[in-house]
């Protein structure tokens, strides 16, 4: 197990280094460097040259790369080009909001999708197609709804028509009620898609297991249907479900960018969109790397859990 974790960790390290390198060198390919982006049209040639020197842009590329790696290691993400604020501080205040949205979505998804998917599988197994078709059909439609569109429809319905939730305003992390009030809709929008995806996967996984011999044996022993379903079937269907929770984290991160934009939430996604609109490469570069890091770390964790659940797995 330890060897396995170490091997996976080495892969994680290589991928992370690759991500950082890729982003660094790709950004250096852009015509016009960070100094001219920062100065806009306000500086003359000589002043621009001085600024470049100040920012270390006149040094050889490999020196710049080394400096950049070192600064990342000590969590020094530099300053935003446009406003001069520390990127680290901005991220520190935005991150809890995004994480809260992502994690609550996952919890709601797991709680709702696993029973729904199991139920659909059970119905399909019993040959009662009606409910199964209803659940799978709805899941397919919900799964494919673009999240920005769902977001707008929910905004229209719950905020503008029913006036249950505010459409904008501050997120005061010290006041749980205001946080709940403000983040409920974005989480709901994300959860709809996630639940749909996971319910479909759960259904397929459980349905496959329900045909196995040991399920028949469990039934013949007189266990109740519920016990067979949850103790025996679901447990053995857990592997694909865990994988999907891990993989869907990517689409969840994509989704947070969209809902933060729609609902005006000051999270990491809003920082990213604003950063791109103001051509703030320093910010964009760090944020993209940060998203990739979260994603690879989650995948790393998924691999480990997968292995833990199924000792037969070798990679």
């Amino acid at each position: 197990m330890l060897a396995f974790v170490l091997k996976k960790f080495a892969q994680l390290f290589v991928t992370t280094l690759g991500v950082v390198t890729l982003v660094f060198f790709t950004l250096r390919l852009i015509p016009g460097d960070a100094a001219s982006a920062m100065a806009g049209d306000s500086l003359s040639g000589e002043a621009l040259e001085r600024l470049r020197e100040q920012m270390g842009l006149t040094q050889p590329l490999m020196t710049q790369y080394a400096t950049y790696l070192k600064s990342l290691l000590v969590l020094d993400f530099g300053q935003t080009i446009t406003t001069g604020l520390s990127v680290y501080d901005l991220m520190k205040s935005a991150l809890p909001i995004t994480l809260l949205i992502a994690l609550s979505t996952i919890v709601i998804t797991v709680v709702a999708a696993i029973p729904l998917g199991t139920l659909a599988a059970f119905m399909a197994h019993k040959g009662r197609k009606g409910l199964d078709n209803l659940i799978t059909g709805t899941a397919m439609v919900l799964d494919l709804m673009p999240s920005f569109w769902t977001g707008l429809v929910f905004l229209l319905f719950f905020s503008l028509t029913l006036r249950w939730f505010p459409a904008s305003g501050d997120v005061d992390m010290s006041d749980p009620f205001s946080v709940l009030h403000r983040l409920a809709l974005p989480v709901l929008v994300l959860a709809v898609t996630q639940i749909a995806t996971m319910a479909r996967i759960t259904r397929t996984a459980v349905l496959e297991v329900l045909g196995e011999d040991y399920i028949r044996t469990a039934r013949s022993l007189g266990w109740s249907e519920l016990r067979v379903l949850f103790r025996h079937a679901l447990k053995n269907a857990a592997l694909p479900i865990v994988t999907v929770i891990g993989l869907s984290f990517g689409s969840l991160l994509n989704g947070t960018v969209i809902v933060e934009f729609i609902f005006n939430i000051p999270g990491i996604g809003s920082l990213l969109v604003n950063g791109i609109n103001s051509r703030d490469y320093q910010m964009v570069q760090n944020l993209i790397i940060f998203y990739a890091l979260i994603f690879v770390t989650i995948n790393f964790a998924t691999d480990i859990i997968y292995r833990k659940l199924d000792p037969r797995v070798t990679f």
Partner: protein
Amino acid sequence: MTDAMSLGRSTSGEADAPLPRPTGGPAIAQRSAAPAAARSVPAFRGLRAVLANRKARIALMILVPIRVLTALLPWLPLQAPLQTNLRAMMKPPSFTFPFGTDRMGRDVLSRTLEGVKVSLFVGFSVAFISLVFGIVLGTVSGFFGKVVDRAIMTVVDIFLAFPSLLLAIGLVSIVGTGLVPVIMAIALADIPRFIRLQRSLVLGLRSRAYIDAARTVRASQWWLLSRHVVPNTIASLLVAASIAAANAILVEASLSFLGLGIMPPEPSLGNLIRDGQTYLEQAWWISTLPGVVILAIAISLHFLSDGIREVLDPRSRK
């Protein structure tokens, strides 16, 4: 396409003949060049088998009319997409304006159709580009293995470390906005997935008996790849490609919605919906109705993919 259709007519007498081998297996590899055998050209048989599938037919019954409507747009009794009409601003859906009008009195339906044209173009371009790069690099990686495989897979892993929309956002921030950069950005995010898929398909085929047989008779590498390996992966790749097209359409719409994709006045479903966001309360139709069209297209493409899969692997039918 016309060939396939006339073919369908000329062979309609045999409609009750048993379906072609549906596995897409070696059948495709034995492509015959003789025109006399044209009616059994596997590609056409495959097409007929797909058309015989219920899900694929439903998908085409939605996609084809939508595509035809976009092509006929200039002749439809609709106000031109860019034409403003100050006497009909923010009008709700009606007979003259089925999807209503926006703040400048432009017809939302004709703008939606114009956007659909762009969306479909993005979807198919991305699917095609990813398919081509995926086939070439995936085949090389899977068939030749060793150092090349290592190198390609390392790069693929790095690209797969980014959530897809975020990679597209990052790339667009570098290559800029507009139709072509968006297609490039989405395709670049998709290609690694296709390389992976093709690689695993090729790895699965490499040890098949008919590949060994061809090797025994000293077939060249090129012959092996072009006659036996690649043709047998095409079918599975098409299943993935039609999902990739749906996905690309959704990603393009998301990018344009965020203001990072196709920018107005170039129409796109995403920026159409973005335009309407400001007036959501006064004019709900501007943002919501184009979204329904995106959804319909995405669902059709997934149905098409399911259809192709069922034709390939009859066991997957429920």
